[in-house]
C-alpha cells in the first residue's frame, strides 16, 4: 500500500529514463542522502565516524568497483587490494611531488593510474575465464604489493617503507576533523554512486551484463569482448583506485603495503557476494555488513556481561563470522540486496495482501 507506483504515469521520455522512475524510490534516496549529510552529524561521535561510517563508505566505493567487474561483467577478481594500493601510492606521490595540487585532482589521478594498471592486468581476461582468471588476478595482487614494498621511489625512499600524508585541504578548508572527513567522503561516494548507476543502466552496462550472462552469445550478437571486458576492468579499477586513495589518506593517514594485502581483496569480494552481485545497493549493504559484524561480534560478550578471555572472544568471532557467511548464503544466495528487493515487493501489498 505504501510502496505502489499506481498512478505515476510516465508522460515523457525523460521521465521514463530517470534514474529512479518510481517516486517513492526517488524520495527515499533523497531523504537518505539528506539524513546522511545533515542528520548524522547531529548525533555521531568520533568513534562512529572514524571506525564505522568512513570505512563503510570508502569500502562501499571499492565494492561498487569490484561489483562492476564481477557482478555486472562476470569477471571474478581477487586483485582489489592491489588496485587500491595503486590508488593510494599514486595519490601519495602526486601529493608529495606537487604539493599544490587540489585534493580532488589527487584522488582523480589515483583513479586514473589504477585504471591504467587495471587495463594492463585485465588483458589476460580475454583468454582466461572463471576460477582460472580469479587466481590469475592474484598475480596482480602479489606483484603490486611487492612493487610498492620494494621500489624505493614509490615510498619516497622512506627507510621503513611506511609512508604518511600531511594535512589535507580542500579549497583552503582543512579536512582535519572526523566530521569534515565524513562529509567529504560522503560527497565523493554519492557522486561516484550516481555515476555508476548511470553507467550500469546504460548501453555500457548492458554490454557488460551480456558478457556476464554468456560471453560467446554476446559476441555473436555483436558485442566486442575486448571492448566490454577491458572497459569493465578500467571502470572498476578506477573506482577501486579512488577507494584506495581515500582509504590511505582519510582513514589510515600512514600506511604500508600490508594495508592492501590479499585479505583486503577477499574482504571486498565478501562484501559484494554478501551484499549481492550485480546490485549497487548490495555494495553498500555488504560493506556495512563486513565492517560492522566483526566489531559487533567482538563486543557482544561484554555487552551481554559475559566474562570471557580475549582469545576466546576472537575465536568465537572467527567462528560466528564464518557461520554467518554460510548461513546467509544458504538463506539467500543472492545477497542482502535481494532481501531488500523482496521486502519492497511485499510492501506493495502490505498490510492488505488481497
Amino acid at each position, binding site marked *: 500500500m505504501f510502496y505502489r507506483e499506481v498512478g505515476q504515469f510516465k508522460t515523457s521520455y525523460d521521465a521514463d529514463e530517470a534514474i529512479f522512475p518510481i517516486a517513492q524510490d526517488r524520495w527515499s534516496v533523497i531523504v537518505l542522502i539528506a539524513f546522511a549529510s545533515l542528520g548524522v552529524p547531529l548525533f555521531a561521535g568520533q*568513534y562512529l565516524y*572514524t571506525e564505522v561510517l568512513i570505512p563503510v563508505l570508502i569500502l562501499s566505493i571499492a565494492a561498487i568497483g569490484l561489483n562492476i567487474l564481477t557482478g555486472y561483467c562476470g569477471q571474478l577478481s581477487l586483485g582489489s587490494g592491489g588496485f587500491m594500493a595503486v590508488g593510494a601510492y599514486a595519490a601519495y606521490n602526486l601529493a608529495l611531488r606537487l604539493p599544490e595540487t587540489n585534493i580532488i585532482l589527487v584522488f582523480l589521478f589515483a583513479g586514473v593510474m589504477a585504471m591504467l594498471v587495471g587495463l594492463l592486468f585485465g588483458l589476460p581476461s580475454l583468454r582466461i575465464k572463471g576460477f582460472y582468471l580469479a587466481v590469475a588476478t592474484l598475480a596482480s595482487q602479489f606483484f603490486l604489493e611487492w612493487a610498492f614494498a620494494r621500489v624505493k621511489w614509490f615510498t619516497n625512499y622512506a627507510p*621503513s617503507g*611506511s609512508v604518511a600524508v600531511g594535512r589535507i585541504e580542500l579549497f583552503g578548508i582543512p579536512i582535519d576533523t572526523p566530521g569534515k572527513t565524513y562529509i567529504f567522503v560522503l560527497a565523493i561516494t554519492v557522486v561516484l554512486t550516481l555515476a555508476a548507476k548511470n553507467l550500469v543502466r546504460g548501453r555500457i552496462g548492458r554490454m557488460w551484463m551480456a558478457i556476464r550472462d554468456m560471453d560467446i552469445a554476446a559476441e555473436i550478437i555483436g558485442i566486442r569482448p575486448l571492448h566490454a571486458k577491458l572497459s569493465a576492468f578500467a571502470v572498476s579499477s578506477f573506482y577501486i583506485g579512488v577507494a584506495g586513495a581515500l582509504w590511505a589518506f582519510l582513514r589510515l593517514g*600512514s600506511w*604500508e603495503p*600490508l594495508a592492501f594485502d590479499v585479505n583486503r581483496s577477499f574482504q571486498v569480494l565478501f562484501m559484494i557476494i554478501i551484499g549481492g552481485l550485480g546490485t549497487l545497493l548490495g555494495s553498500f549493504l555488504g560493506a556495512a555488513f563486513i565492517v560492522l*559484524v566483526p566489531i559487533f561480534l567482538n563486543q557482544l560478550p561484554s555487552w551481554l556481561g559475559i566474562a570471557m578471555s580475549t582469545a576466546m*572472544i576472537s575465536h568465537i568471532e572467527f567462528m560466528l563470522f564464518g557461520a554467518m557467511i554460510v548461513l546467509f548464503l544458504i538463506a539467500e544466495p543472492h545477497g542482502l540486496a535481494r532481501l531488500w528487493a*523482496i521486502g519492497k515487493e511485499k510492501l506493495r501489498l502490505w498490510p492488505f495482501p488481497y
Partner: protein
Amino acid sequence: MTGKTMSGIRVGIALAGAVAVAAPALAQNEQFIPNLVYRTGAYAPNGVPFANGIADYYRLINERDGGINGVKIVFEECDTGYATDRGVECYERLKGKGPTGAAYVIPLSTGITFALTEKTTVDKIPIISMGYGRSESRDGSVFQWNFPLLGTYWTAADIILQHIAKKEGGFDKLKGKKIALVYHDSPYGKEPIALLQKRAQMHGFETLFLPVTHPGVEQKATWLQIRQNRPDYVLLWGWGVMNSTAIKEAVAVGYPREKMYGVWWSGAEPDVRPAEDGAKGYNSAALQHTAGQFKLHEDLKKYLYDKGLGAAKWEETGEILYVRGLINAMLGVEAIRTAQERFGKKPLTGEQVRWGLENLDISADRIKQLGFEGELRPIKVSCADHEGTRTGRIQTWDGKKWNIASDWLTSDDSVIAPMVKEAAAKYAAEKKLTPGCLVTN
C-alpha cells in the same frame, strides 16, 4: 519472506543501537589503561605471554597495593591479531573509556605504532613502544607522544654489531666481512637497515638484505641464498612463527646457529623450542632482562597465583616475553606514579601521564624496591631522549634455557644520535611540525 526481511531489519537496528551504546560508566577513582594484544592468529605464540605479563602486573598492583596510591587500575584487552586496521579500531574504541580516558597505549606492533603516532597526538595519549616502533621517535621534541623506552631497533642492531665486533677483535676487523639481515617484510623488519648501512659504510663490511613475506613460513629460497652467499653473520629480525622457521631452515641448510643473532623480539622460548636441539647456540639481543623468575615473582605467587588469579601458568611466568610484559606494565605504572606526584593522587589524563613518562626516573634503588633487581638498569627519560636507556646484552640458547653471553653493551650515540636527528627533522618537515619540548601545566 517478510519474517526474514524483518529479522534482517531487526539485526540492522540492533547493530546500529549496539554501536551507539556507550560503555558502562566506571567508578570515579579508577585509572583506565587499554591493552592492545594478540592472543590469536599467526603471532599468538609470542603475543600471549606478553599480554599475560602485562595483565598480571596490573592485577598485582590492585591486589597488593590497592592500586597506584589508591587509584585502582582498570584495564581492557582488545585483540588486534597484529593487523594494523584492527589495532586502530581497538584504540579508537578504548581511548575514551574510564573517568579520564586512556592513560597510555601499548600497541605491541611497529605497524600499529606508526598508524597511531598521529592519532595520539590529537587525542593527547602517549604511546609506550618499549623496544620497538620508529627509531627516530626517541627524539621527544618531534615525537612528543612516543616513548620507545629501553631501546629502539637502531640500538638493538648497534648492540649486536658491537658484540660481533668484539668477538672479531674490533670494528676494523669487520672489513670485508659479510653480514646478512633476514627480516620480516614490514616496517618492523626494515627499521635496522638504515643503521646497518651506516655501519657498513663506516667499517667496510658487506651487507645482504633478505626480506621474508608475512607470516614467514616460506623461507627456503632465503636460506638457500644464505648457503650460497656464505655470510659471516646472519641477523634475524623476525616475529612469530618466522623466527622458529628461520632457525629450522638454518638447520636444514647447515648454517651455524652460533653465527646467528636475533633482535630481542626473535629471542624468546617459542622461537627456539620448535627447533629443539637445532637451536642450540643461537644468539639474540636481550632487552636488558633475560628469562627466569626473580624477586617480584614472590609477590606474584602470593597475591595472584596462590589465589588462582594469574593469567598464565605458574611455570610460564619466567618466560622472556612474560617478563617483558611485566617490565612494560611496570614502566607504565611508574610513569603514572611519577605524574601523580605532580598532579595529585587521582585518575590522570593521557596528557598528565605523558608528563610522567617524560620525567620518568627509575634509579637502581627503586628498581630493587620494585622487585626487578638484576632485570633492569636505571632509566631516565627526558624530552631529548625518550628511550631512557640504551643498553642491552647478548644471550645464547643452550638447548634448555637462555644464558647471558655478554657484558652490558651500550649503543654508540655518536653514530645513532645524528641519524635520529636527521630522520626526525625529515619527519617534522613532512608533517609541517615545529619541533620543541611539550610543556604540561
